């Protein structure tokens, strides 16, 4: 805390650009508090300038950009294939969804067909990655709420997934595995068996998660009725993913804008009408189960064949001029890549729509009048990944 002690006069008000912009100075009853960028529950380097009255938040303004890397500019300096590794680093938790959004946009732009087996591989790996992403969220959320143990149990299960995904992708976190027209490497029988075994194992663990956390009275009291988000609010802010589903609307890009082979699988879109943090929590927990269902179906029905279409783009491949928007359902919501090409080998413009960005933008509104502890509970329930928001 470098800024003022409480009860300084306005003239003494120090602080940086954003603190100064936030308000002219602390009034008699409130104080300005910087939550982050190095706060334990802002998961990285999110910063929120708060005006608090005791522990009640009067006003909140998130300050972004501490992890901004200008991915969109990098896209304009690299060829389509060279840009792929960036996609694994936008959202480190659900890297494959971003992989998919980008290669999907390239495929839509150039009209590239993807072999069926590659589509199945994409579905299986992306869903595994989604489970891993939700597991990290689950553990970290509980850590925010003061329970230390769940994150280690979650990581125990996530380790299964990382070990599985390591075989085809070669990486454990920042995957760059998908390629325009297919995937980089094939999966083997062992992987498929491992994925099925994992689904069985995970179901068992989900029961334990329910016993340990979901049913816990302290946990429920912390979440129920906290941070209600209405459907109208989701519209105004463009909130997607578990946030909108937690508000009672079954909107999932996998169903709304069907891509790949998702229309062949049976899965439900969980929703709750409550719209509170508990609703979002339960939606995510049910999504784990639904992802497992998709994985099992895909593993059972995966066809043999090519994993990459003949004549798939090479490094210096030139895309046809035009634009394409491709959206996928990421762990945090709707991921969109808007690609504009001028016919050269580099994107003319690549706009990344990060779900976390939109989800976070509503925080300023719901944070009014809540307790500091609830702010932590709400931030966690939005499942923020800062590098994704800042891009």
């Amino acid at each position: 805390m470098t800024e003022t002690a409480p009860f300084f006069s306005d003239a003494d008000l120090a602080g940086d650009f954003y603190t100064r912009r936030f308000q002219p100075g602390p009034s008699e009853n409130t104080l300005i508090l910087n939550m982050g960028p190095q706060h334990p529950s802002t998961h990285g380097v999110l910063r929120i300038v708060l005006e608090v009255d005791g522990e009640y938040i009067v006003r909140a303004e998130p300050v972004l950009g501490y992890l901004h890397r200008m991915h969109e500019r990098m896209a304009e300096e690299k060829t389509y294939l060279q840009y792929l590794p960036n996609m694994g680093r936008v959202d480190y938790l659900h890297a494959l969804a971003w992989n998919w959004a980008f290669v999907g946009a390239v495929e839509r732009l150039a009209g590239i067909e993807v072999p069926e087996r590659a589509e199945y591989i994409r579905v299986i790996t992306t869903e595994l990655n989604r489970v891993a992403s939700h597991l990290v969220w689950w553990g970290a959320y509980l850590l925010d709420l003061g329970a230390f143990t769940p994150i280690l149990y979650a990581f125990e299960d996530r380790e299964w997934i990382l070990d599985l995904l390591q075989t085809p992708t070669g990486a454990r976190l920042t995957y760059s595995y998908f390629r325009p027209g297919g995937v980089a490497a094939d999966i083997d029988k062992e992987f498929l068996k491992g994925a099925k075994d994992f689904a069985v194992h995970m179901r068992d663990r989900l029961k334990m998660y329910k016993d340990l956390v979901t049913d816990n009275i302290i946990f429920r009291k912390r979440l129920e009725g906290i941070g209600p988000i209405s459907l109208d609010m989701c519209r105004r802010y463009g909130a997607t993913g578990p946030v909108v589903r937690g508000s009672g609307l079954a909107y999932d890009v996998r169903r709304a804008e069907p891509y790949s082979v998702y229309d062949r699988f049976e899965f439900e879109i969980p929703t709750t009408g409550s719209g509170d943090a508990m609703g979002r929590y339960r939606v995510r927990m049910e999504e784990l189960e639904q992802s497992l269902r998709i994985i099992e179906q895909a593993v059972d029905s995966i066809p043999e064949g090519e994993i990459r279409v003949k004549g798939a783009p090479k490094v210096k491949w030139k895309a046809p001029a035009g634009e394409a928007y491709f959206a996928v359902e990421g762990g945090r919501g709707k991921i969109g890549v808007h690609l504009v090409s001028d016919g050269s080998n580099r994107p003319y413009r690549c706009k990344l729509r990060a779900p976390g960005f939109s989800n976070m933008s509503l925080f300023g509104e719901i944070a009014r009048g809540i307790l500091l502890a609830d702010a932590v509970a709400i931030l966690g329930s939005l499942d923020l990944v800062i590098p994704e928001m800042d891009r």
Partner: protein
Amino acid sequence: MDLGELDARKGFFKETLAGLWSLVVGLKVTGKYFFRPQITVHYPRRTVDNIPSFRGPIELISREEDPAKPKCGACSMCVSACPSGCFTVTKKRPPAPTPEEIAEQKEKEARGEKVKKKAAPKEPERFLYDYSLCSLCGTCVEACPSGALRFSASPYRAAFDRKELVFDLLADLAERAREDRNPPGTGKTTE
């Protein structure tokens, strides 16, 4: 699928008892795991068993006939393919002409004939790889026309200085050839 209410509560006492019971259940879970065996791996004493599937730093693949010579044709495709500019590849210069050859060339020049210079051998003179820049995306492996690059399976290449992370891949290859752990083909090194 609407998840509905989280198990509806009936009455004050039932709710209280259910709440208390949930606390006991939580303790039971952690208590049970207290007596379960550990699952973490004690690193220096034990290592995880799936290191071979890890895609580590790039390495050169040797030719079938000579384990110390790379398949690389020094075409520099990897240099232009790499998104981060990890590679520095220089081609071998043509061998210096012998005095007789110089004389012969001069003779030819005097006669007005076209002089044919000796073609450079398709081999790299230097093949540097800056691991500190590499994001292990594999674009170079896919771009290589002669299939001379692959991921190694060594996760332990670390250094105290960024400069130490610039690997001379030709030297690495020669060393592997010396130690005879360089199976030709596309398979990975065994460590």
